[in-house]
């Protein structure tokens, strides 16, 4: 059978991958992302579990060393960085920028991923409720109206101003930042999911599943969610990029992740004070953020194009 109709035997995943891999920019972004995820895991392992690169080691003698410079002979033996050179230079306290960037890669990525997981979860939950149980009435108002009006309320807030207000009022903590970015950015996902669910609810396969007497949670999670997930995946990939940018903007205003955690955002925000004395403190994290956010955006757009049914038919 495979020999007769090779085109139609492709699974949706294979077809997605075929279209995605034809998009050179998206593939480039994908490779960069893989590399960065490995770097982030390496950063967690090498700076916290087995300290090969110590991001918090202060060496005041060796402050503002440019990238690739060798450690001076004035520091003690245990203070010497790995290989005896500062790969990306040192900052105003003589801390190794390479070690800080490694540590920051994990923190920055996890801020993006956790924030987006929260917003995607809330979005699917509320959008799914509004789409599937929308007709149920609670007193004078239907579930659908209730949830969608609440979404409208959330859309009325100036998002960045709201995030800034809450982050400034709450005690500074990395978890607060993740949670706040998450609960202020689910509205788009909720709208997508609701629209998809409204369309899917009328489809024959859902009717068939109902006729088989499947429990509702099975219909929702095993039959409807997988069919509604494509736009959600795209928006969450792009959402990770947005969360990383938001964190760096918060850091710039002084409300970002506080020490001892290093993120690319706060390395950049600190580095701007030394832009003339030590330009590497500014340009290295800045370009790193540009690259990672660009990679997420390109992969997200590539996925959107590859999942577009209009392109598939061609």
């Amino acid at each position, binding site marked *: 059978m495979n020999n007769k109709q090779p085109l139609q035997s492709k699974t949706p995943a294979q077809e997605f991958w075929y279209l995605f891999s034809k998009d050179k920019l998206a593939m480039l972004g994908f490779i960069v992302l893989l590399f960065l995820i490995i770097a982030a895991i390496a950063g967690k392992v090498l700076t916290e579990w087995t300290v090969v690169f110590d991001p918090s080691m202060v060496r005041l003698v060796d402050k503002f060393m440019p990238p690739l410079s060798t450690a001076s002979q004035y520091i003690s033996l245990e203070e010497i960085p790995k290989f005896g050179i500062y790969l990306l230079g040192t900052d105003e306290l003589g801390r190794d920028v390479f070690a800080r960037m490694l540590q920051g890669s994990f923190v920055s990525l996890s801020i993006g991923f956790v924030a987006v997981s929260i917003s995607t979860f809330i979005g699917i939950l509320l959008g799914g409720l509004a789409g599937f149980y929308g007709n149920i009435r609670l007193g004078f108002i239907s579930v659908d109206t209730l949830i969608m009006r609440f979404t409208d309320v959330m859309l009325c807030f*100036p998002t960045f101003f709201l995030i*800034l207000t809450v982050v400034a009022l709450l005690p500074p903590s990395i978890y607060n930042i993740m949670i706040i970015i998450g609960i202020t950015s689910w509205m788009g996902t909720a709208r997508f999911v609701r629209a998809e669910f409204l369309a899917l609810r009328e489809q024959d396969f859902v009717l068939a599943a109902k006729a088989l007497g499947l429990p509702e949670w099975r219909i929702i999670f095993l039959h409807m969610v997988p069919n509604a997930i494509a736009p959600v995946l795209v928006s969450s990939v792009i959402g990770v990029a947005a969360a990383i940018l938001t964190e*760096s903007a918060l850091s710039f205003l002084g409300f970002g992740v506080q020490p001892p955690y290093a993120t690319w955002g706060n390395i950049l925000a600190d580095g701007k004070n030394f832009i003339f004395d030590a330009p590497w403190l500014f340009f290295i994290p800045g370009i790193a953020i540009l690259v990672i956010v660009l990679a997420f955006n390109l992969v997200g757009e590539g996925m959107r194009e590859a999942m577009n049914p209009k392109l598939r038919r061609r």
Partner: protein
Amino acid sequence: MWAYIFRNLLQRCVLLFIVSILAHSVVHLAPGEPSEVDPSNPRMQPEDIAKIRAAFHLDAPIHLQYMYWMRDLFSGELKSFKDSQPVLPKIWERFLNSLPLFICATLLVWTLAFPTGIQAAIRRNSAYDRGSTFIAYALISIPGFFLSYIMILLVVDLFGVPVIGMRTFGMEDASPLYQNMDRIWHLVIPSLMSALAGIAVLSRYVRSQMLEVIGQDYIRTARAKGLDEDTVIYHHALRNALLPFVTLFGFLLPGLIGGSVIFEAIFAWPGLGRLGYEAILARDFPVILTINFIAAALTLIGTFLSDLLYAVVDPRIRLE
């Protein structure tokens, strides 16, 4: 039609009311109070703190505080916690400062994004299309303040463009002509920097809209009639591609407040975003809440206007 407008306005008023309650609860329930901004000040005695709390109604239950806020807001007597200045004139003054920056940035976005996006759509997959796509993604992905700092480093030495504040200090005696020229000169870099991300996003959107429309049957018909390409693109395609952008007008207004915090901080621009930032630092609740309230009201007005405009420009849509 009128029934629709009336019902819609009523709904929006209810939404605004809920937004204000939510904002008020978030700000008041979060830890941290105006009386605690300066805990290390030795002159701050417990009785002073009690006096401050009583003066700002901070001891009252939260729903009463909300009533006080609403009463003062609508009677125009709302006072800032920080300096006891009336809030509304304060916001109005900063709003007038933000307005030229906002107008310039918006004009830049809308005049540059459309030609870029249309060209990219017409020459699909050309070098121009790929180049502009990549540059657009790069502009979306770069942190705004990083790009602004690089820009400042480049242009200040090369062109001597001012990047601090709204006017040159000590120009008060110059003739009004020079003063105005000075103010416009100060607008250049801040408005360009705050427009760049918008240009990138909007030009991508224009491109995808144009591509969508160019694939339609009526465009093939127009070509088959033998119309020249310019008429097909700018007369038949562009007019239909423009429809969704009417809704974008709705999202312009709130950008006046939310999007400006970072850029006003970078360029020391004494505008609304900066006022909000300073209010957050000082826990100046009336100012924070009022700015938030105005932003929400602007969003609701904007989306309402875009709904109406949509019905005006697209005869297929009927308001019921």
